[in-house]
């Protein structure tokens, strides 16, 4: 009983998510129904995937600014592989995810072997990916309209009843991320490096190699996000991507992962991402004038995090 409560309280903003959800359910009759809830989940997919990957990086006390445009570059790559080159969908998807891994690998190399601060290394990658997406695509969207199998990855209904596959993908990815972070040696070292990098190194662990692995892993999620967004839009849009990184990082941080490293959880990240999309959806459903939406969004995020922190503080000390 109390163990369960303890586990829940670990996740900084869990109570707030519930509160926000309840508020909208009461405030608007259009909020709480099957199709709106699935559409909230659906709209969480891309940010959610990016946030999952970047949770690892942030727990090592790094940061990844390249996920937004990196995702776009992956989407373009997917277009090149599947539409332009004509690879079968499954192979193209695999290739795209691996390409995402490559982006992460380069970030990881720059951070751990060249010793560039993560902010700069991934900022540089953000710019490079943005440019390359335009160069490779010739600044033109690549359309997947002739690849229904690809589009179905996002909007198909494996589980029937209007439950889009994209949500399934997010769910599976979340489980994988949680298992990797909590149950594997990679996850354990992620926390160790973030807690005390020097102590970890002096414990005989090859911190550089593990960091490389962690950034590469984050890159795989970027690749998957690239697949999911291009499948949803049935096109790779080379000019987009900027801004997604901030939203994903925000989801991670709202979910209780500390930018100082060493602390964080996958469930927290998912909750953070959900808080953002529930708020966006609820405010729109309630037809709040848009210029006020941001004001309210900001205030609610502040209150949500504060309330959960206060609750946590009072219950443990």
């Amino acid at each position, binding site marked *: 009983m109390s163990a369960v409560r303890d586990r829940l309280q670990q996740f900084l903003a869990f109570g707030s998510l519930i509160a926000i959800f309840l508020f909208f359910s009461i405030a608007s009759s259009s909020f709480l129904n099957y199709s*709106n809830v699935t*559409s909230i989940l659906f709209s969480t997919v*891309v940010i959610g995937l990016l946030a999952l990957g970047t949770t690892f990086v942030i727990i090592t006390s790094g940061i990844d600014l390249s996920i937004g445009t990196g995702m776009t570059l992956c989407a373009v790559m997917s277009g090149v592989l599947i539409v332009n080159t004509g690879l079968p969908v499954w192979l193209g998807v695999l290739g795209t995810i691996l390409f995402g891994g490559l982006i992460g690998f380069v970030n990881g190399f720059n951070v751990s072997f060249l010793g560039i601060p993560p902010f700069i290394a991934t900022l540089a990658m953000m710019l490079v990916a943005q440019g390359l997406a335009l160069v490779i695509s010739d600044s*033109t969207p690549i359309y997947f*309209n002739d690849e229904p199998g690809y589009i179905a990855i996002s909007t198909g209904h494996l589980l029937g009843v209007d439950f889009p596959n994209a949500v399934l993908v997010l769910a599976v990815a979340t489980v994988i991320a949680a298992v990797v972070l909590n149950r594997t040696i990679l996850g354990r070292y992620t926390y160790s490096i973030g807690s005390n990098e020097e102590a970890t190194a002096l414990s005989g662990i090859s911190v550089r190699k593990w960091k490389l692995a962690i950034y590469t892993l984050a890159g795989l999620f970027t690749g998957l996000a690239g697949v999911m967004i291009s499948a949803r839009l049935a096109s790779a849009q080379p000019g987009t991507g*900027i801004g997604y990184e901030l939203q994903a990082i925000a989801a991670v941080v709202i979910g209780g992962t500390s930018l100082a490293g060493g602390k964080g959880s996958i469930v927290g990240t998912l909750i953070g991402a959900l808080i953002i999309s529930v708020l966006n*959806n609820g405010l729109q459903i309630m037809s709040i004038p848009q210029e006020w939406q941001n004001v309210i969004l900001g205030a609610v995020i502040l209150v949500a995090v504060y309330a959960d922190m206060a609750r946590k503080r009072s219950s443990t000390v």
Partner: protein
Amino acid sequence: DDGGETTGGASAGGGGGGGGEQPYIAIVSKGFQHQFWQAVKQGAEDEAKAKGAKITFEGPPTEQDIEQQVTMLTNAIQKKPAAIGFAALDSKASAPLMEQAKSANIPVIAFDSGVESDVPVTTAATDNKAAAAEAAKHMSELIGGKGKVALVVHDQTSRTGIERRDGFVEWMKANAPDVELLPVQYGAGDQAKSADIAKSIIQANPDLKGFYGANEGSAIGVVKGVEESGKKGITIVGFDSGKAQMDAIRSGVMAGAITQNPVGMGKQLVDSALAAINGEQQPKVIDTGFYWYDKTNIDDPKIAAVLYE
């Protein structure tokens, strides 16, 4: 080879064949990555090639980046081009730079929308407000003059955003009293975000009749949102072209859209610049026009010429 001469007013197809050193035209646009601006760039590049001129084409990442555009224009003046093409994000903010260009003896051609300054030799633009009014007119006809209509616009502060919103809203207010307009929502022209907005609107307004998307990203986003929500019978009217929008129109998901003539605008821009370099007289304003297109006329050669994929 592309037949369609520019639409609208008189154009001065300038003579300047490329003798010796090619004249250099620096073009600072409102954007770069969007398909609309890529089409303008395409038109300008083709024309420059044909007429023997050299161009560069630049624009800030979003239509909010006014300061960045001003810096781009400053840098363009530094390069001492033979002429400058400029699409102002804010018609007043760049007025001082116009003076600077003038004192450096560089003729300026405004395009897409005007500048509040008498420096530009000519302005090659379309009337976004009139175009949006045209969209409103078609929307009203399509839904029988009454019902709820929602607007998804790319942003609330850029000129194109404001004009494409206001043109639509004002026409409806004046001519279709039974059409109820929902509060305008802004999706930054991002397809995914616009789709999410569209779905929320559908959730909150099950009796929604029509959707207006004010640029390519918004329009396609609306199409996605409607498709994803599974809701039938909503009339969608869009703006700009692009393959996805044309497909949506062909398949009937979208009723129709307004397109401007970006390729023609780019071409006109280069023509006017060359004319200005040669000191030729030009009209103050050159209207590059806009068109309504739908299933019925999309393959019409005249329309097909102004659409871009």
